[in-house]
C-alpha cells in the first residue's frame, strides 16, 4: 500500500485512488498520528521543538535510532556478561543479568 500524499491524485488514477482512499482515509490519519508518535520517541525532535518533519526523514531517523539502540544493547550486554563473569553465578544478581542478557 502506498503512502498517499496530502494532495489528491488526479487523472485516471483519481477515481481508483479515491475509492481506496475512502477506505484508507482513516488509516491516513492514523499514519500521520503514528508518525508524530514516532517523532516524539526520537531523541532529536524531543530536545528542540521541531515541527513535523517529512515522513521519509522520520523513517530514516527511526531506522538509525533503532540501530543505535541495538548497538547500545550490545554494549550493555557485553558489560553485563563481563559483570556476570565476576559474580557468583548462583547469585540472584547473576540471574537478573542473565535474564537481561536473554532479552
Amino acid at each position: 500500500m502506498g503512502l498517499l500524499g496530502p494532495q489528491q491524485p488526479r487523472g485516471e488514477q483519481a477515481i481508483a485512488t479515491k475509492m481506496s482512499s475512502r477506505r484508507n482515509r482513516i488509516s491516513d490519519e492514523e499514519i500521520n498520528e503514528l508518525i508524530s508518535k514516532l517523532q516524539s520517541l526520537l531523541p532529536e525532535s524531543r530536545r528542540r521543538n521541531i515541527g513535523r518533519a517529512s515522513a521519509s526523514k522520520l523513517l530514516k531517523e527511526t531506522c538509525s535510532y533503532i540501530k543505535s539502540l541495538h548497538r547500545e544493547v550490545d554494549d550493555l550486554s557485553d558489560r553485563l556478561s563481563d559483570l556476570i563473569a565476576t559474580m557468583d553465578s548462583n547469585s540472584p544478581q547473576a540471574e537478573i543479568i542473565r535474564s537481561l542478557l536473554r532479552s
Partner: protein
Amino acid sequence: MQSMPDNELIELLWQDGHVIMHSQTHRKSPAAFGEVKQAQRAEPVPKCGGALGNSSDLIQEDETASWFQYPLDDSLEKELCSEFFYEMPNVDAIGTNKMSKDTSAPGERSIKFGANDETSVFSGSDPKQSNIRFQENTMPPPKSHVIASTQQAPRLGNSNFINFSHFSRPVKADLGSLNGRLGKESGKGIRAGAGESSMTTIGSRISGSNQTQTLAHPSHTMSSDAAGVVSRGSNEDAQMTSLSERVRTQTYETTVTSSSGGSGGSFGRTGQQITSNQSHKRKGRDAEESECQSEEAEYESVEANKQAQRSTSTRRSRAAEVHNLSERRRRDRINEKMKALQELIPHCNKTDKASMLDEAIEYLKSLQLQVQIMWMGSGMAPMMFPGVQQYMSRMGMGVGHSSMPSIHGPVQLPQVPFVNQSMASASTANQRPLCPSPALNAVNFPNQMQNVHPSETYARYLGLHPMPSPTQAVNFGTFGSQMVQQNQTTAAPSSSIIPTALEVPSENNQNNNSSK
C-alpha cells in the same frame, strides 16, 4: 508526318500562352471541330478496314486538322485548357492525367510533356470550364500532383520522369492522401500516429527543424512506395482523393487541436494517454504491417507538424509528468525506508503501513526500556543484591566511588521526575518505596528515558528477588543514612542491610526525601 504535326502541335501549345486566345476563339466554334474530330476519330476505326488510301486521306485530313484541332478539340481542349487554366501548378499532372485518360496518341503525351513546362504560361484563362477539376484547383497542389503523377505511373511509361521530378513535392501530398485513405480521422488516431512518430522523434520534439528531417525521410520511403501508393490509390479518383485529403487534413488539424487541448486539460492523464495511444497504435501497426512504412513516414511528418501545435500542451503534460514522477519517487523513498524499518524490527510480519508504524513504535519503546534496564543492571548489579557487600569490599570502594561521580551528572537531570513516578509506581506495585528509584537515579541511564514504564518493569524485575537486596543495593548505591533508615523501617527483612552505604551527597537524599 505524324511527327510534324507533333511539332506543330507543340509549337502551338507553346504559343498557347498567346494562342490560347486563339484556342478560345477556336473553341467558340468547337462543335464543328469537335464533331470533325469525333468524326475523324470514329472514322478511322471503320476505315481501318478500308483502303489504305482512304485511311491515309482521312489521316491526312486528320493530320491537317489535327494540329489545328488537337489543341482546339473540345474534349481535349476543355480538359487540357481547364487543367492548364485552373491548376497552374497541377497542370502538368492533371493535364497529363486527363490526357492519359483520353485515348490519345503519343503525340498528345508529348504535348503534355511540353505542357508541363508551360504550366506557368497559362495564367488563369477561362474559368468557365469549371468542372470537378476546378475543385482540385483549390486543393493543395502537391497532392493532386502526386495523385496524378502516381496515377500516371502505371499508365504512362513515358511519364516516369515526370513522376520522379514531382516526387519532392508530392511527398506531402502522398502523406496526406495516405492519411485520408487510411481514414484515421480520430484525434486519437492522429495522436497515436503522433505517438508512433514521436517515438522516433521523441528527442527532437521541440525543434521544428526535425519536421524537415522527417519530411525528407518520407520522401525516400515515398518514392519506394510510390508503386504501392499507386496501386492503393489507383482506384480513387484524383479529384476525390485530393478533395477528401483536404477535408481530412482539416479534420486532422481540428481534432489535433482539440485533443491537444484535452490533453492539456488533464495533466495526470496526458502521459498515460500518450503512452496508451502509442501502445494502441503500436498494436494497430502490427496489424497493418504492409502499410507500416508509408504510414510511419507520413505520421512522422504529420506528427512533426502537430507537435509544433501541441508544444504548450506538451509542456503542461510534461510538467504533470514531472510532478507524477517526483511524487512516485517520494513514495518510493518512503516505501524503501519502511522496508528497512521492517527489517530492523524483529518478527515483523506486517505489511501495511499503519501496523508497521505501530510495530515500530512499540519496538522502539521496548528497545529504549531494555537499554535503560541494562544500564541499570550493569550499573547496579553489583550493588543490588545481598552479596553486594562482600562484592563491594572485594571490588573496593573505588567502584562505587568511581561510578558515583560519573553517575551523578546525568542522573540529576531526570532524577526528580523519575523519582516521583518511579516511587509512586513502586509503591503501588510493591509498596516498597524507593526500590527502583535510587537505583535509577544512581545509574547512568541514558537521558532518553522518559517513560514511567521502565521503572515499573524494573521494579517488577527487582520484585523477583527479595526486596532487601534492591533496597540494600539502593541504599548502598545512592542513599545516605536517611534512606537506609527509611528502607529499614519499611522493609523489615532489610534489617540486616548494611548501612555502610557510601556517602551520598546530601542533595540526593534531599531530593529523594522531598520527592518522597
